[in-house]
């Protein structure tokens, strides 16, 4: 469902060209669980942003759900993000003045979904993520694990096909990190394609498919036997 063909991304810093991604080729099927690992600066986040249509490739082709999304306009890209892609960030990125429920509701509000439908969907998610008691709390009244659960609920509220997580456990302690990871893994059982970027080899090893990167290139792409 995702295919990158000869994708590269170069940044211009001053008059220097920094190659963050070099000639990336990869395919990703529906419901796949992929982890991307590699040292700092190897291009993991850049790759994830490209997959999430937050960034554009300098060269190459990106096919999503069979369609070519490489040259979509900003507005079209935003629409694809809204409908097909969910993001989970290391630093949660919750809107501080909104309650947990309102944060979860946000993507639906931006997409123009009617209020009743939103309320219903948010209530379902809040219940299934065990946040019922925290629905009306603002982010600063929540623990790290709760914040990340709110963020995951927000990322899934539009039922996306792909969930992209950049170091989702990076700001959490071990136990909470594992809980959050389990939550994400459960999503793959429902057919979501999950991509996790991580430094943590132990976490990365849980994925059925693992990619290692170095200097903007994929140096290994392995599938783990079940």
């Amino acid at each position, binding site marked *: 469902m995702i295919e990158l063909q000869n994708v590269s991304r170069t940044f211009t810093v001053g008059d220097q060209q920094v190659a963050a991604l070099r000639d990336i080729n990869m395919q990703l099927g529906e419901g796949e669980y992929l982890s991307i690992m590699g040292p700092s600066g190897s291009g993991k986040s850049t790759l994830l*942003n490209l997959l*999430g249509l*937050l*960034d554009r490739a300098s060269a190459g082709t990106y096919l999503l759900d069979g369609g070519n999304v490489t040259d979509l306009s*900003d*507005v079209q890209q*935003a*629409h694809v*993000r*809204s*409908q097909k*892609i969910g*993001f989970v*960030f290391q630093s949660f*990125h919750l*809107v*501080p*003045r*909104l309650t947990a429920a309102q944060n979860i509701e*946000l*993507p639906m*509000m*931006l*997409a*123009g979904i009617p209020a009743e439908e939103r309320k219903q969907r948010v209530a379902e998610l809040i219940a299934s993520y065990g946040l019922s008691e925290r629905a009306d709390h603002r982010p600063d009244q929540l623990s790290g694990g709760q914040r990340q659960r709110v963020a995951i609920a*927000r990322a899934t509220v*539009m039922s996306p096909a792909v969930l992209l997580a950049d170091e989702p456990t990076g700001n959490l302690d071990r136990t909470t990190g594992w809980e959050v990871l389990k939550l994400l893994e459960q999503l793959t059982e429902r057919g979501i394609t999950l991509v996790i970027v991580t430094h943590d080899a132990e976490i990365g090893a849980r994925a059925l498919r693992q990619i290692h990167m170095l200097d903007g290139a994929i140096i290994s792409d392995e599938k783990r036997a079940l």
Partner: protein
Amino acid sequence: MKLADTLYFASGSLRGSPTRTLLMMLAMSIGVAAVVVLTALGEGARRYVINQFSSLGTNLVIVLPGRSETAGIGAGMMTGQTPRDITLDDAEALLRSTAVKRIAPLTIGSATLSLDALNREVVVLGSTASLLEVRHMAMSIGRFLPPGDIHESASVCVLGIKIKQELFGNNQAVGQWVRLGDRRFRVIGIMSSQGESMGFNTDEVVIVPVASAHQLFNTAGLFRVLIEAKNRDVIEQAKREAEEILFQRHNEKDVTVITQDAVLATFDRILTALTMAVGGIAAISLAVAGVLIMNVMLIAVAQRVKEIGLLKALGAPGRQIRNLFFAEAVLLSGIGSLAGLVLGYAGSMIIGQIYPSLPVSPPWWAVLAACGTALGTGILFSVWPARRAARLDPVAALSGR
């Protein structure tokens, strides 16, 4: 995104920083209130002047001696002549015009009014019975000047209420004799109080028949002839015919005829311009408030870079982000101008209480202009910050770069 949601979200971000929001609204509302109060004052002054003029009489045409040349030097000035007098016969001749309802000749001078040992300097008006109607005056006690021959110099007088009080106190005045200059006059009536009108206090005058006044001041020329036209439509005709009649009698154009309407219109124009100028100056404070909004919006964009990045990641196109910031500006300036209107009207009412004679009420166009300017500057000055927000690169914004 739905409009209601956009407004709701924008109001949420405004509430998120209440101090900043309140200060901006304060700036907006002070600007709007300034426009409202200042134009209310200007408009009040305009109405005050017009009321004063209207209280002089309706459909008035005024004849005064001398040719007033608005351009260049008049004939009289070249030859050193004083203009020819307007005589009582001239005044009576004006009645030949079919547009004229009545006339009241007017002579003005000052004389010493005395009763026994009491005496004081007074303004003496010489006129006829018609003055009462032409000038919309009213009697308190007794009669006004008797109708009859304009040349008859009867020894009767009518006192202003204040003069009567000073001379007679609470005693009966009508029927008493007073001395005006070297001549004795019998008091036949007392004017009712009318207060000041165009700097001319009818409470402090003594009115005598015009012929008596001419003898008193030893003159034959009138100060003014007040003409009341039959109705509004024939004012111009009355003016034209008055000019013709006096031209025939004097064989030259040596009088000036003005209509009250023309004078009024001039004042109206001047004062409206003044009101607009004052309102315009106040509107500058609105522009200042607009710059303030822009500044604060830019800060808001900088502070909320991560949030903007997030919204983009969640699928908001640039246009939506821009609309969110527009909505904030509209809410700010909208609520600010509402508050300003309330402030402005309250201020106008307070001024109205302090100066009851001034009919202060802000003109509708000023209210519209103030709110329009407030909303306009609010939106205009948020264009740049909103565009800046809409164009942020999502990756950079998310990482706070």
